[in-house]
């Protein structure tokens, strides 16, 4: 099979520019494909998994943006008494932008001790003690640190809010790495927020066997008697509904991914058809020498496969690199979706490129292998 490798490679080289442009097209398309895939994976991670299913978010009824939800902080004591609730963490949320944005910065203010216990953060720089003792210090997510180029000791200001970075953390929940944590009081007393005694939401952690939906209902019923009515949902459902506009958009974007694959298919198929038409006589000569029709078929398919795979691998790797180093996230209303590279994404990209390459070659390869040798030899 590989004895004809020099023939295939040199054949691709012969039309270097055409090969290069086609591979380039495949690279761009696979780049977009992987990017769209990363957004989708990010969304899936956000709305599924343990954190999304076993945590409840208590929000003010009919409010969506964190700036408009205001719940009494002492609701925490009431919620804690609801059966099935293990712990409650009051959280103040502050964001620089309530609309959909690619550079959203979301602060969560909560008790440092509770944060440490409930969020499973791993510090890659800095330490907890500074964060716990210094009033205006913040822990920032690794993604945010990358995007904003922040290190421990830096001062980080957005609008009226100014904090000092006490640590950089990684989290098992990718989207968390776009957050900045401060103490609850710090955010409550930030100028303009004026939220003494108030919080944006309460995060309720469930007992081992508690049913999340039953507990959620119980919480809302209990708090219905209080001054502010609430809506309690699983964190995943809460995030999905908060991001509903984006979810629609992302759902649409996945068609974009498929469109890219279709584009590569036609592009590589066109190039392969051209390459075959250029070489009708050459393939007939090969068959006259004794090359089997099946081998001619494989030679043509391996050409389209190589072009597509070369471009696809480059596009996929570049996409993964950008995702890894860019620290990109899209967010709205205080919830963010992290774009992250993943092994499955890379593999999907490469497999898609390979399949597309194979598919693109099939028809031209079939033609090349079935042509009438004598007629093809008589071509000028």
């Amino acid at each position, binding site marked *: 099979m590989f004895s004809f490798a*020099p023939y295939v490679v040199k054949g691709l080289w*012969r039309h270097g520019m055409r090969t290069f442009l086609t591979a380039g097209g495949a690279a761009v398309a696979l780049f977009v494909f992987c990017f769209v895939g990363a957004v989708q994976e990010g969304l899936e991670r956000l709305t599924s998994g343990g954190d999304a299913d076993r945590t409840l978010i208590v929000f003010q009824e009919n409010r969506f943006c964190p700036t408009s939800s205001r719940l009494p902080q002492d609701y925490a004591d009431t919620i804690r008494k609801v059966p099935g609730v293990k712990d409650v963490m009051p959280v103040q949320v502050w964001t620089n932008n309530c609309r959909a944005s690619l550079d959203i910065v979301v602060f969560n203010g909560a008790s440092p001790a509770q944060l440490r216990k409930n969020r499973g953060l791993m510090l890659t720089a800095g330490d907890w003690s500074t964060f716990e003792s210094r009033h205006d210090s913040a822990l920032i997510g690794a993604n945010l640190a990358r995007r904003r180029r922040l290190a421990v000791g830096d001062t980080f200001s957005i609008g009226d809010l100014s904090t000092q970075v006490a640590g950089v953390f990684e989290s098992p929940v990718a989207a968390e790495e776009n957050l900045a944590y401060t103490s609850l009081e710090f955010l409550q007393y930030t100028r303009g927020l004026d939220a003494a005694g108030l919080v944006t939401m309460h995060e309720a952690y469930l007992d081992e066997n508690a049913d999340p939906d039953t507990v959620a209902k119980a919480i809302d019923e209990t708090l219905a008697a209080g001054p502010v009515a609430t809506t309690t949902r699983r964190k995943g459902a809460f995030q999905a509904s908060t991001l509903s506009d984006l979810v629609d958009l992302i759902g649409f974007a996945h068609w974009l991914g498929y469109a890219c694959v279709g584009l590569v298919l036609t592009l590589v198929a066109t190039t392969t058809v051209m390459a075959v038409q250029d070489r009708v006589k050459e393939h007939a000569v090969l068959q006259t020498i*004794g*090359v089997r029709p099946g081998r001619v078929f494989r030679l043509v398919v391996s050409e389209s496969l190589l072009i597509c795979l070369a471009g696809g691998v480059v596009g996929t790797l570049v996409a993964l690199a950008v995702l890894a180093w860019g620290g990109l996230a899209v967010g709205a209303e205080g919830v963010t979706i992290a774009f992250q590279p993943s092994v499955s994404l890379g593999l999907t990209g490469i497999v898609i490129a390979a399949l597309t390459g194979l598919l693109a070659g099939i028809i031209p390869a079939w033609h090349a292998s079935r042509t009438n040798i004598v007629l093809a030899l008589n071509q000028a």
Partner: protein
Amino acid sequence: MALAEIRALTKSFKKGGETVVPLDGVDLDIEKGDFISMMGPSGTGKSTLLNAVAGIDRPDSGTITVGGTEVTKLSRSKLADWRAEHLGYIFQTHNLVPVLTAYENIELPTLLVSMSKAERRERVELALEAVSLTDRADHYPRQLSGGQEQRVGIARAIVMNPTLVVGDEPTGSLDAATSVQIQELLVRLNEELGMTILMVTHDAEVANLATRRLRLEGGKLIELNGRAANTGNGRKAITAG
């Protein structure tokens, strides 16, 4: 039994309303070591016959048996395998693969049959030597003259030491001087390497090199006297032995 036996070969084409019958019951025996030339007016069916013998075209009826194999019965893939091992085809134009060097072009047929690297190398080098192009092994076709290209094409046809070599006007697109070179080469292949050659030509001078001369006319083959018979120098006996 002759090396190749062609029996009752027919082939016709429908052209518009009328039917052309280039081969109308052709019979021919080719003996090992024969150097056969075939002439005839344009459009009589010489190429059609040659291509059927080469196994790249199928007759309507009749049989062709080469070295005991009935090639007219083989499937497309089996036919390809048979050509790889037993047939050398010299084209009118060299038809070399432009992106491969002379060496790589000649090597192509050897890649289709399993053999050691060393044997492959040796065969290609022998073929290069036979066409006196050892010093041009690494040249690409565009770096060679027309005559050199044709010689590489011939080397590619003989590298597997095939049972039968066919050529469709192998000197047809060369100038007079180059044509002479190729003619000498063909005679040498036949006399020194004992190759069996069936060649179509329009050039009487080229045809006269052959040990047997045929003429295709009206769908039938007519045997004329070859050079060996004319001169009576016993050349045929030498090459056959």
